[in-house]
């Protein structure tokens, strides 16, 4: 993975010193809380209901074992022994003291990490495919491009005070696992007919209060132009995005107001001023960056290990984990291991310091010392020998990280909700528990198959509910928590927003409603249909009838 040179180190260390100075000026009364607020946000520090929350950047979800150990250390030393992995592949801590945050940042800097631009109205962490470099359906490894964009966007002086936050995602695979059509800029790395590498560029996608699917602004952008083109988009947005209403300030609103053709015209006009100047990248830049993401030292192996097959037939728990939590790898004899952070009874995405340390050890022993985070709030060991899977499973199982529920209805995306977040209308963690309790039988879970359940505690949609196969949104009705359901959302290549099911549902009936939806699915499905496929065929009515039957 990418390793800092002296320039990267200097920038991160100087950012730590700058933030330390900001905190000291605040504590000395020289910088008001109001003036500190946008500054601390740009370093990932929020004020939540109970305490500060610090969000640490994990660029495109890549971690090495030393970094994971530091994340564990921070959880132990400065927090209550756990951290929460987020839908932007970052981690956040819910209980740090303001005065400790500069020290936390200094600890992070030691392992080449930071909290720069994890919040605030600026360019956020670049997110990507958690299977980058190892997925069988990958066309081009997106990580070198992610890192190039990360560096350009870090502390960009002109785009630090945008109308609103700005999110960029990159995918290089046939199946989009990074939801690029739901980003302010979404990039698909592709090859044109001449086999040249470039990007299909989407702009103006996003979730939040006004969910919008991104529009194609450029069918093929040569890769050497990626920074200049992003800069042109950002400059048009910085100058013309709305600033009078924060709910209408994202780029999607500007793109919709102008229309994609007029927006494209403005971007191209701006781009023409500087497209062939300093921001144009050279072949050697890509080669240099690609060298940071070499193929690991794979052994020459065959698929199908005898010991593995034997244990799959002997141990049903192991076999269930193998089938649901591991995926095909592009190199023979290896497998991708998904590590579920959705253990029953635990807030989705949470991991303890012990679990993080265990992950680091397991990664060192079996996975080239590397771990990825996913936007679905799980972890990934990308390169595990098939012959090691049994040992990896045992090690993960020993620390509660082998729940075989990846892709199931229990593998839900969930924001922190009312338990922590000052924006939330409703709790989501307790709802996750309620749903978990309805699906304790793994055989039933497997029979239901792939369901992407996504839940947000308010309209800001941190839990991406609009693109859940089942989406649940917490709303406030006269001081009570109610839940609005959608069905049929899809964050993949066939991007789709969910259809509203009907009136909001009472808090204690949410689990029942999920059961009702899945009952209808199991009655009506044909052949290998997933919930999403059945929904697309039969529409919302049968689900509606079942869920609201009691009220009728």
């Amino acid at each position, binding site marked *: 993975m990418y390793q800092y040179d002296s320039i990267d180190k200097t*920038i991160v260390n100087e950012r730590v010193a700058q933030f330390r100075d900001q905190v000291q000026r605040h504590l000395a009364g020289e910088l008001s809380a109001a003036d500190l607020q946008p500054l601390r946000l740009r370093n990932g520090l929020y004020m939540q209901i109970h305490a500060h929350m610090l969000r640490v950047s994990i660029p495109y979800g890549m971690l090495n074992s030393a970094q994971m150990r530091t994340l564990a250390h921070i959880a132990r030393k400065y927090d209550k022994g756990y951290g929460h992995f987020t839908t932007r592949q970052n981690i956040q801590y819910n209980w740090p003291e303001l005065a400790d945050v500069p020290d936390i940042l200094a600890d992070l800097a030691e392992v080449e990490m930071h909290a720069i631009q994890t919040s605030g109205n600026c360019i956020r962490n670049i997110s990507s495919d958690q299977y980058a470099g190892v997925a069988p359906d990958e066309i081009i490894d997106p990580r070198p491009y992610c890192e190039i964009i990360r*560096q350009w966007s870090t502390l960009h002086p002109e785009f630090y005070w945008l109308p609103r936050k700005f999110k960029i995602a990159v995918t290089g695979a046939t199946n989009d696992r990074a939801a690029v059509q739901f980003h302010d800029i979404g990039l698909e790395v592709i090859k044109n007919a001449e086999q040249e590498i470039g990007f299909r560029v989407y702009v103006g996608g996003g979730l939040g209060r006004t969910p919008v699917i991104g529009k194609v602004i450029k069918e093929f952008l040569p890769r050497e132009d990626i920074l200049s083109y992003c800069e042109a988009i950002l400059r048009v947005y910085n100058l013309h995005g709305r600033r009078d209403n924060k709910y209408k300030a994202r780029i999607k609103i500007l793109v919709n107001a102008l229309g994609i053709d007029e927006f494209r015209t403005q971007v191209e006009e701006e781009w023409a001023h500087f497209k062939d100047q300093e921001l144009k990248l050279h072949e050697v830049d890509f080669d240099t960056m690609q060298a940071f993401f070499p193929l690991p030292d794979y052994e020459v192996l065959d698929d199908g290990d005898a010991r593995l097959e034997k244990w799959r037939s002997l141990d049903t728990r192991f076999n269930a984990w193998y089938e649901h939590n591991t995926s095909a790898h592009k190199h023979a004899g290896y497998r991708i291991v998904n590590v579920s952070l959705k253990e029953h009874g635990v807030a989705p995405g949470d991991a303890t310091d012990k679990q993080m340390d265990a992950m680091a050890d397991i990664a060192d022993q079996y996975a080239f010392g590397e771990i990825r985070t996913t936007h679905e709030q799980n972890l990934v060991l990308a390169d595990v020998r098939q012959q090691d899977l049994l040992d990896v499973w045992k090690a993960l199982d020993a620390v509660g990280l082998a729940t075989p529920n990846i892709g199931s209805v229990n593998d839900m995306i969930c924001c922190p909700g009312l338990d922590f977040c000052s924006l939330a209308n409703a709790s989501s963690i307790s709802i996750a528990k309620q749903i978990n309790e309805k699906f304790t039988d793994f055989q039933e879970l497997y029979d239901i198959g792939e369901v992407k359940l996504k839940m947000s505690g308010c309209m800001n949609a941190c839990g991406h509910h609009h693109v859940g196969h089942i989406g649940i949104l917490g709303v406030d009705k006269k001081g009570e928590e109610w839940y609005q359901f959608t069905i049929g959302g899809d964050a993949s290549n066939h991007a789709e927003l969910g259809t509203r099911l009907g009136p909001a549902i009472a808090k204690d009936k949410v689990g029942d409603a999920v059961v009702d939806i899945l009952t209808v699915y199991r009655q009506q499905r044909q052949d290998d249909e997933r919930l999403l496929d059945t929904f697309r065929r039969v529409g919302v009515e049968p689900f509606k009838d079942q869920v609201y039957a009691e009220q009728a």
Partner: protein
Amino acid sequence: MTANRNLKARPKATPDRIQNNIQSEKAIVDRAIVDSAIQHVAETDALSVADLPSSAVSVPLNLWLDERDAVIARGQPVAVQIAADESPEDLADQLDSIDMVVLPFVSHVDGRSYSHAYKLRTRFGFKGEIRAVGDVKFDQLGFLTRVGCNAFELPDGENLETALRAFDEFSEVYQPSADQGRLIFSRRRAVH
């Protein structure tokens, strides 16, 4: 000759313009604390050159575009404001007549003026002073300098000596801007 040179409407006195005149005793210019005597005159719908005080002023862009010759005839250095919701393009062919461009910040979280400064320096080649005034404090100075501002007036009560520290917070940067023209990758290219 410059009156109404733009066919598009140029709204006046919008909420994105300063609502009151701004004058500071001190300014930071090229990293040094100096006395300041210029008054930044707020726009009103009917403002004309005849209403201006005889001392040094910066004038709203609209006044400059409407009464350019009268502004020059005052015999003072010419200083023109570009508000966040205005465009430096409107001034681009007249920069030779202008000594100072003033970027008034109604709110420091409004980043449009950063793009204005960047364009003035890198696209239109403006060599005069670019002065940020209004809601501009310590923590904005570093990036404002990067995009091309070289002068600052801070609100009353801000410690200018402390603020001078802001210019040395970062010794390395990734992007080209008005302060330096190199992209990080082109610098690394030179090393290899």
